[in-house]
């Protein structure tokens, strides 16, 4: 991979900050970026890669910014995108929100980061944990910036520095599963999968050695034990701190954790699950007069669990007006700018069934433009519950000073890309 320059543009195509890494592409080429994008948008054929002369623009959009990399080589495109996303990740960790304002307010740090992240078009130090040790926002204030080389740059454990101390040693483990679901208009499930992540918030002193035990089916099959429910995970992805060789040989997840918050692992489970919240909808459209919508939501999970902040978003025609709602629970409102009727239920106990009716008026002069058929989407979260049944069986913490540390575990299931196609 080799990137000639990296630009951060605002939505009008103005360069907010840029860095010329190689000097083999004219920096003025970026002026062609937005016009190119506009023509593509007009024709409806936008593409994350664009070309002007022999310059390629690879771009991503984040909030109100475009991040653009230019190159004139046949470099590895996915690596370039990965780098741009890395930029977003690092900037977000620094400024919590990456947007035009945060770039302008922090341009000093941005310059410093761009300098460290890449040299001559090649990514260098991209781990934000390490970067945060020697590029700090305080450095931009009066006190003379830290000038010592961080130990991590040469450390064996590059993601954790030595000499960390906490009064109370604790680890918080969050197991978060999100459900992606696609149901077609006649109610059959087209695809569903679970994407899970295990997040850590480590507040441990020294260099602790951690071992995480899950009810992993492959592990149980390996050891020949069979205690109750197990889960088989696919596409398991780990933080770099996990010793992959150990995982491959005996499925043990052992690691020295990074300090503070981090994502330890993610996995995907492809088994079909019963959709946790099932939606049945009848949308009747009487041309030139009105639309009648009836939506039934059913909680298909255990009675003792409760789904919070359930939001059912039902698409309505863009020219609808005068909404009327009737709900058996929660409240519904019309969001005209998104052409949605949103039905919110603060708490939705398992096994229950609720109903919403809505009616909208339609103008007598019909909108000629063709509209797509957007699906009904549902957002929810169910605490203290994992849909796959994955469990943390133990978390062993060993440190040479021998302190006692407490692991805390929290489970949550939430909606990912949860779509039910409607018939209207």
């Amino acid at each position: 991979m080799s990137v000639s320059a990296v630009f951060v543009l605002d939505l009008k195509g103005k360069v907010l900050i840029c860095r010329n890494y190689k000097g083999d592409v004219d920096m003025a080429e970026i002026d062609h970026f937005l016009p190119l994008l506009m023509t593509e948008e007009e024709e409806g054929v936008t593409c994350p890669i664009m070309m002007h002369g022999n310059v390629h623009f690879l771009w991503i959009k984040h909030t109100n910014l475009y991040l653009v990399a230019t190159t004139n080589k046949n470099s590895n495109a996915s690596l370039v995108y990965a780098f741009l996303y890395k930029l977003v990740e690092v900037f977000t960790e620094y400024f919590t929100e990456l947007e035009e304002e945060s770039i302008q307010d922090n341009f000093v740090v941005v310059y410093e980061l761009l300098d460290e992240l890449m040299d001559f078009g090649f990514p260098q130090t991209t781990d934000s944990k390490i970067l945060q040790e020697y590029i700090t926002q305080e450095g931009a204030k009066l006190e003379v910036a830290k000038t010592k080389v961080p130990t991590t740059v040469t450390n064996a454990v590059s993601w954790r520095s030595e000499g960390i101390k906490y009064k109370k040693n604790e680890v918080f483990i969050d197991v978060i599963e999100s459900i992606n679901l696609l149901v077609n208009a006649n109610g059959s499930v087209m695809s569903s999968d679970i994407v899970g992540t295990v997040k850590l918030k480590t507040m441990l002193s020294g260099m602790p050695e951690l071992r995480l035990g899950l009810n992993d089916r492959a592990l149980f099959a390996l050891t020949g034990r069979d205690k109750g429910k197990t889960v088989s995970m696919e596409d398991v992805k780990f933080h770099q701190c996990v010793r992959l060789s150990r995982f491959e040989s005996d499925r043990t997840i052992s690691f020295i954790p990074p300090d503070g918050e981090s994502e330890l692992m993610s996995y995907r489970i492809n088994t079909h699950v019963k959709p946790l919240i099932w939606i049945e909808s009848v949308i009747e459209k009487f041309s030139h007069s009105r639309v009648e919508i009836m939506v039934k939501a059913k909680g298909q999970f255990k009675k003792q669990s409760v789904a919070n902040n359930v939001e059912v978003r039902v698409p309505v025609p863009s020219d609808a007006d005068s909404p009327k709602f009737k709900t058996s629970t929660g409240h519904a409102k019309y969001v005209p700018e998104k052409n949605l009727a949103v039905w919110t239920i603060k708490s939705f106990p398992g096994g229950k069934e609720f109903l919403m009716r809505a009616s909208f008026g339609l103008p007598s002069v019909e909108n000629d433009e063709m509209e797509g058929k957007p699906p009904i989407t549902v957002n929810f979260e169910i605490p203290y519950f994992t849909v796959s049944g994955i469990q943390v069986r133990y978390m062993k913490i060993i440190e040479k000073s021998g302190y006692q540390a407490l692991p805390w575990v929290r489970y949550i299931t939430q909606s990912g890309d949860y779509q039910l196609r409607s018939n209207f």
Partner: protein
Amino acid sequence: MPYLGGEETVRELRRALSNPHIQTDHLRYRNTIHRVIRLMSQGVDVSGLFSEMVKACATGDIVQKKLVYVFLCSYASVNPELSLLVINTLRKDCSDPNPMVRSLALRNMCNLRLPGLCEYVEQPLTAGLKDKAACVRRVAVLGWAKIHALLPNTEIDAAVVNELYGLLRDPDPVVMVNCLRALEEILEEEGGVAINKPIAHHLLNRLKECDVWGQSEVLSVLQRYRPRSEDELFDILSLLDPALLSHHVPIMAATLRLFLSLCSMLPAVCVSALERARGPLLAAAGSSSRELRYAALCHIQLLLRSEPGLMGEHYKRFYCGYAEPPYIKQSKIQVLVELVNDDNVAVVLDELKGYCTDVNTETSQAAINAIGSIGRSYDDRCLGILTGLLELKQEHITSAVLQTLRDLVWVSPQYGDAVCSALEKWEDQLQDTQGRGALLWLLGVYGDRLSGAPYILEDFIDGVRSEVSAEVKTELLTATLRVFLSRPAETQDMMGRLLQHCIEEELDMCVRDQALLYYRLLHCGIEDVRRVLQCGRRSDLSLGPLIGRPPEPISQWASIFNTLEPLMLGASSAGNSDPSTLTPYTLTSHSEPMTSDPHLMTPNLSSTLSPEEFERLWLQTEKGEFLEAYVMCPVPRCSPESLQVALQLVNIQTLAFTAPNKLPWKISTTPPNTLILAEVLQAGGDGVKKVKEELIEDQENEREESTNTHILITPC
């Protein structure tokens, strides 16, 4: 806004920067520098402050230093003389006890990008290679690559190159990877860094220490290594095997590419590597970032060219989400077409049907085309869907359906009846040129079965004066003539009017010539007309390869795997059933040596070669020399007509299509009086490939025959 009073602000800043009171007040000085940099980022020309800023870099404050360096690097090219002043400070910083300062100075010294300063930079760089801090060595190593880029004609000292080779064994993995990168750039002309057995094994052993970027780099460099023995090869493969399942997509892709290049002689191993990587590839195609998803989809399309069965059962992973951008939907649709088999055809068609009414025109057209191409191998359900779509009376959908139907019946004439019954009720008006062309073609071919055909044609002929597209007019001529053959009584009058208009009033030469041709043909008698016009009604069975492609060998695309090119291919073919929107693409100076891929040439649209010059060049080529040129033409799976149109767009005129196993352009058997010869010339410039082409009329046909020159057009 500050940049309205640009000059005034610059003057004020200069005063501030040279004010001794401010200079001694650390905070105020730094704030002034911040303002300068902010203005610079906003695009104000603050290069006038260069000399003031040079002074500001002599400071102990490392953040201030960084900012000043950013400033200096941006404006050094405007102020080469003043930059000389900076060198002193930079060189002093290079011996600073703090390694951060040393690396910073070294990096920026090279980033000034002034060839004149290189002599001052070389000494600190040499020292930097031996520095005890890894972060300095990292910078120094890349520094040499920068010097090489600045002075491409001067050779880097052999001692330095040796030292760089030595540093491949540096304990710091980033230094090692940077060394590889630097050597690749410096030794580009010699084909990059030399990978012998010890280096290859060393790199393989240290692979695990590197980060994602480093691993991808090492894996791509290793492609050039050729193991000595089969045992060694398999050792390497089994070492790399786990990486095929890596969930870092870049590593998986780089490993897969390495597998494909190492095992180019062992197709079975390649296939099993592809199968191993299937899971991660599918995961990448469902990645949360749309760009990475798109990249993965483009690569999957590449893989499917050779291994159509690879993803068969996972077709559901390629269903489109409602909110996905059109480019992803279109590549998913293209993948879905490849994945259709007996078991899933009904489900996939149902899904595709849903996409036909997508808000995005391109996407809906792509879906309609997809249904059409499935229709070539699967039942009439496709036809039912397509004709059903006509009832929606949406202009762009109708147009796309007509084009698809045309392509479909051309390949599968058995659908003729169904198409006729769908067209029987035709009474719409179409604006779209492509769609009208397709409609006319269908009318011409099925004129005898469509009762309404002459009346639709009449509408067209009445409106011929306001018709702008030459393409539609030629199509109209052909269609009218064809209908005339089957229904002379109804058509004769309007055909006369049409011919008269086209011959006497038409300004477009092609249309006029076509009309004249038909006029004269009619003079020859009805039998001749029939022979000429109706032979093209049925498809040539030998055209099979154009329609159902056999699997390509993996080597065809292995060299472009995991680069930018598949995305460009994807971009130019995504949803573009319409060849007029094809964009020829250029990729100059590959990061991989170009020689590995001689198939990639780009036709230059504006040919600048004069006929005289061409003839001279032509005569220079030796007799009997066999020229063969592959033009990468991104028109996969399309009808011969569209292929022809696409070729015309890149200035290649196709005279005829020949069956695959026959000699193209059977010149020697029937020597015509005028022979049109085509040649694709490749003029070698400085790494820039230019292809010129010219079509000339050559009178000396006898002599040229023996040279047996042709353009071989291989759709790929």
